[in-house]
């Protein structure tokens, strides 16, 4: 017993540690996503740049929340069944079976009302069609139940067996309806929109419907744009490590990876959008040309540090070696993710083995 408990504890602590580490890793540098940038419509581009995965599948997200809501509703339905006893059931205390059944039904009706109330409370994220739809369906259900109730009240004088049967059927019907409702709720948004437009609750949320339609229209446009990628401005990029090739400190395996003349990327034109930095362009160029690229994001400032390009890393040619960058033949004194580009800039990434002295940036001291 004790041994197994100990092992379990150890496993749990291990899993917790690993999961915390993994979570920290994945969400650590998440704020900076320089890859997706779309300029034209301000509202749409804001959404897409913040998180593309969420906006790509809005239906899935809302479905989840809907199912969550239905769970809540079901739990609310189940509560009053057990607890509340309506006054009508007290009156008909003679026929115990019937009373219990009627109380059940009454409580169901009550719960339906309560559901209406609960559903009407607007939740912030979910689109407003859902409560509207539920209002309609619930109202129909409650109507039917009230009908069945009246039927029961009338038929109290009749023989008990018949009543039992009829009530059973009524109950079954109501249950079916509940299940149908939950199924309906899980349908896609499109069908829901049509349903709502067909039903009588137009007055409640016509504005929001139109809003939703507008956003729907904009979605395909956005996708097209991301595919084409028309950039406003252009700059040239050149990556070279010619200084590293003849360095003696470079290991044999690294040397085998580098290109023979040291040019990792020939001078090519790349487009960029307003406000993009050197780092954004470099990252895009490397991912387009399948050049290996390793960077680290500095936690507080969010600046990027380039550790290696094309598997040539910092410190590979001694303690004072690493990547430096030039814009228009000048070495800027800011990090490459903080340097905002302007039209026609020519960027050069050069590998230095001697703190920049071998590529024309002699360090003169403070």
């Amino acid at each position, binding site marked *: 017993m004790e041994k197994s408990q100990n092992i379990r504890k150890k496993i749990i602590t291990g899993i917790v540690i690993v999961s915390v580490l993994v979570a920290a890793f994945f969400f650590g540098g998440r704020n900076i996503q320089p890859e997706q940038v779309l300029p034209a419509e301000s509202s749409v581009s804001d959404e897409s740049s913040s998180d593309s995965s969420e906006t790509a599948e809005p239906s899935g997200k809302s479905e989840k929340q809907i199912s969550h809501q239905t769970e809540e509703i079901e739990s609310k339905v189940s509560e009053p069944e057990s607890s509340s006893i309506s006054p009508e059931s007290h009156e008909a205390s003679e026929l115990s079976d019937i009373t219990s059944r009627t109380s059940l039904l009454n409580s169901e009706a009550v719960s339906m009302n309560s559901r209406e109330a609960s559903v009407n409370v607007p939740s912030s994220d979910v689109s407003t069609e859902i409560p509207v739809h539920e209002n309609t369906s619930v109202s129909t259900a409650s109507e039917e139940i009230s009908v069945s109730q009246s039927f029961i009240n009338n038929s109290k004088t009749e023989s008990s067996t018949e009543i039992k049967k009829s009530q059973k059927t009524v109950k079954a019907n109501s249950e079916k309806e509940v299940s149908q409702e939950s199924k309906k709720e899980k349908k896609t948004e499109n069908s829901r929109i049509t349903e709502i437009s067909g039903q009588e609750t137009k007055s409640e949320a016509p504005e929001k419907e139109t809003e939703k339609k507008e956003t729907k229209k904009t979605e395909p446009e956005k996708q097209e744009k991301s595919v084409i990628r028309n950039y406003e401005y252009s700059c040239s990029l050149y990556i070279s490590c010619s200084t590293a090739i003849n360095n003696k400190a470079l290991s044999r*395996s690294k040397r085998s990876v580098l290109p023979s003349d040291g040019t990792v990327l020939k001078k090519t034109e790349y487009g960029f959008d307003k406000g993009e930095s050197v780092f954004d362009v470099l990252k895009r160029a490397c991912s387009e040309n399948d050049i290996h690229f390793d960077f680290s994001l500095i936690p507080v400032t969010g600046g990027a540090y380039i*550790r290696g390009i094309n598997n040539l890393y910092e410190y590979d040619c001694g303690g004072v070696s690493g990547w430096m960058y030039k814009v228009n033949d000048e070495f800027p004194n800011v990090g490459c993710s903080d340097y905002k580009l302007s039209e026609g800039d020519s960027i050069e990434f050069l590998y230095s083995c001697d703190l920049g002295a071998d590529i024309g940036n002699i360090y003169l001291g403070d």
Partner: protein
Amino acid sequence: MKTGFAQFHPLLQMLIFVSCISVTMLIMHPVFLVTSFLLSSAYMICSSGTGRLLSALKLDLITSVMIIIINPLVSHAGVTVLAYLPSGNPLTLESVIFGFAAALLMSCTVNWFFCINSVLTSDRIIYLLGRLFPRLALMISITLGFSSKLSDHYRRVRDAQKCLCSGNKNVFFRIRQNIRIISSVIQWSLENSVDTADSMKSRGYGTGKRTGYNNYKFRAFEKLLIILIVLIDSAIAAAYFSEYIYFSYYPVLEIETNNIWSYVVFAIYALICLIPLAADLMEAKKWKYLRSGI
């Protein structure tokens, strides 16, 4: 009574372990890793049974899993890109393989230290280090002894507490109980250390130079072995620095296999790792032979 490798001269034991561990750690060649892991495991089975090996392997597994998961997430070097991480950095095949190699290295080190723990007892450590760093050696031996004493005492107190009130599964109650146990153990340890200090003082610690009795003598073959091991170590170092055994994990996975000398180096490294195992096995065979003669 320990026999075989445990009866070797402490210096020889130390030398063998240090060369085994340092070669695997400094030269992370996959062949070295595999031979070191297998032979250390085999020696552990031979010297102290499968139970100890299993407890070592448990520790190996935990550390290995951690390393294998973390390494590809942290290091992004390598030519073969498998996928891109959410941060934008690449996940490479080389980093995954290096993670496995590092995990194996960690397991090797753990295994060898388990072996050292069973062979190099505290008096041997004091003998080895006592002349160079007398205070340090004494402190090491005291702390090594004390940790096991402490865990022993903790177990005893816990058992006693269990007898007093068992079966209560309330978490808070258990926490309180554990705190009580730990506090009592700490009190005991403080008291014990004061007692030890008094005892040492009354026996004249610090009045003069410390001497220690030992009965370790170099036998002829042990001297030979020491020379041989030093030679082998230097040969391996020379082979590594002159790239007779060439390999690389980053940025391209490369292992040179067509060099005959590299096989020689692997063989002589295996020889060092084999010494403890061979000593124990030969001792067992001798014992069997002697018994059959009666």
